[in-house]
Every structure is written in C-alpha cells, then in structure tokens.
C-alpha cells in the first residue's frame, strides 16, 4: 500500500495540504515526502518557505501516519488537532522545489493525546526538529 498519497489519509486540502506522500511506516514511526511548489502560500518571491511550515509538516506527517493506521484497521481516517508544541528548533531554510522528508516518531499515546517527535530534512541537512502534542478525535465517541 505504501507509498500512498497523503490526500487519501488527511483532511487537509490545497493550498494547506503540505505533505504529498506517506513513504514508509514502521513501529510508530513514519516518513512523509513534500515538494512545495513555487506557488505555495508559504513561499516568498524568491521561493523561500516560511519557517513556520516545518511545524505543519510534522503535524501533517503524523496525521498521515494516523490516517494510514486507521485505514489498515478498516476505519476511515480520523481527525486530529495540534494542541501543543515544545522545543521546535528551526535550523535551516527550505525552498520551493526542495524534496523534504519529514520523519515522525510516536513517543506516547495516552487518553486521546499523542506526543510526537519530528524532524524535517533536505538530503543530509536537518531543517527543523521538535515535539508536538496532538489531540485525536475518537470517531466512535458520541457528542462533540
């Protein structure tokens, strides 16, 4: 089933869908690929991608991982929301057209919350690392 288009796994749509493809999944870890076009809302006139995009890449890569796991369990992809960020360090700059790989690792998943470590890389260069907390909506739960 892998690689698989992220559009089949996450609710984000263009222009806010930044992850293109879920590449691999192994034991709570995953890698997703992105190539942001020059026309992305995140790029300035020189093609430089806004630093904040790295945070969204990690969040969407985890969402793609979760969506994949839901599909493997015969369920439609569930929803999740970013509720926290800790120690996200941005050490490099991405440009439109770069092939970005985002690696995520599930550190903990308790009571509907997941703690995820992520890293965005371009080739051998790490552009950002950080820890995100996401709230996962239980599709089987009633109410709001």
């Amino acid at each position, binding site marked *: 089933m892998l690689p698989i288009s992220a559009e089949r796994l996450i609710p984000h749509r263009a222009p806010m869908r930044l992850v293109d493809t879920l590449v691999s999944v192994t034991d709570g870890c995953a890698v997703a690929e992105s190539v942001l076009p020059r026309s992305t809302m995140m790029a300035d006139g020189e093609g430089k991608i806004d630093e904040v995009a790295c945070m969204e890449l990690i969040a969407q890569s985890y969402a793609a991982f979760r969506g994949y796991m839901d599909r493997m369990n015969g369920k439609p992809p569930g929803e999740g929301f970013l509720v926290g960020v800790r120690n996200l360090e941005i050490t490099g*700059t991405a440009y439109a057209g770069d092939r970005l790989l985002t690696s995520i690792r599930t550190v903990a998943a308790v009571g509907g919350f997941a703690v995820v470590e992520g890293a965005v890389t371009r080739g051998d260069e790490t552009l950002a690392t950080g820890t995100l907390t996401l709230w996962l909506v239980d599709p089987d739960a009633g109410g709001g």
Partner: protein
Amino acid sequence: MSALREGIDASKLGDLAGTGTETGARRYRFGPGFIGFSGHFPGNPILPAIVQIRAVVSLAEAESGKTLRLAAVRSAKFLTPIRPDEDVWIRYRRRVDSGMDICDATLSVAEKTVAAFQLELAEGETTR
C-alpha cells in the same frame, strides 16, 4: 512576501497598540476568504496553528521595524480553535533570556486566551 503573510497583513484591524518598545498588541479578523482557511479544513475552517505563530512574528516585525526570523518555538499551546470572522487580539512582549530574543505572546478571542506561545526570534533573513 508570501501570500500567507500578505493575507495576515490584510486581516489586521487598526494600528499597532504598543505600550513600549518591547510590547505590542493588535486586533485581527480573519474572514472566511482568508487564504489560511483554504483547505484547513473543508467545511470546518480553523485558523492553522502556523498562521497564529506567523502573525505574532509579523506583528513583532512591524513593531521593531526589522526583519525577524522564527528560530524556535520553545512552547506553544493551542487551547481553542479560531473560526472565521472572530476578532483576535494578539499581544506580545519581547525580552532577552540568556542572550536569546524571546517573544511571549497570547491570542485571545472575546477576552479568553485561545493560544499562548514562547518563541525565539532572530534578526535578518537566512540565505541559501
């Protein structure tokens, strides 16, 4: 300037309400046509977390008159989703901690804090 930053600038209401060189506040209203709502999410628009942080950095840039870069998010909490057409107050305070330029910021809607950040900023653009 990116389309996202242009959209954020177009969503500000009124002038800067800074109380000094290290603090600032501004009101924003992100309408349903704001680019950041496009695809996030279809039928359930929520202001993306990265837009909230980008807006704080842009506000700090406007106050300082300098180009700033987001170097780190030490911590961020997103407490309540922000929907289209809500009036959002962004307030921040900058300080130096161990040589780092720190920006503490809150976003509030109807007097209720909906997000809080501690960011590290750096001056100037990066080059390839």
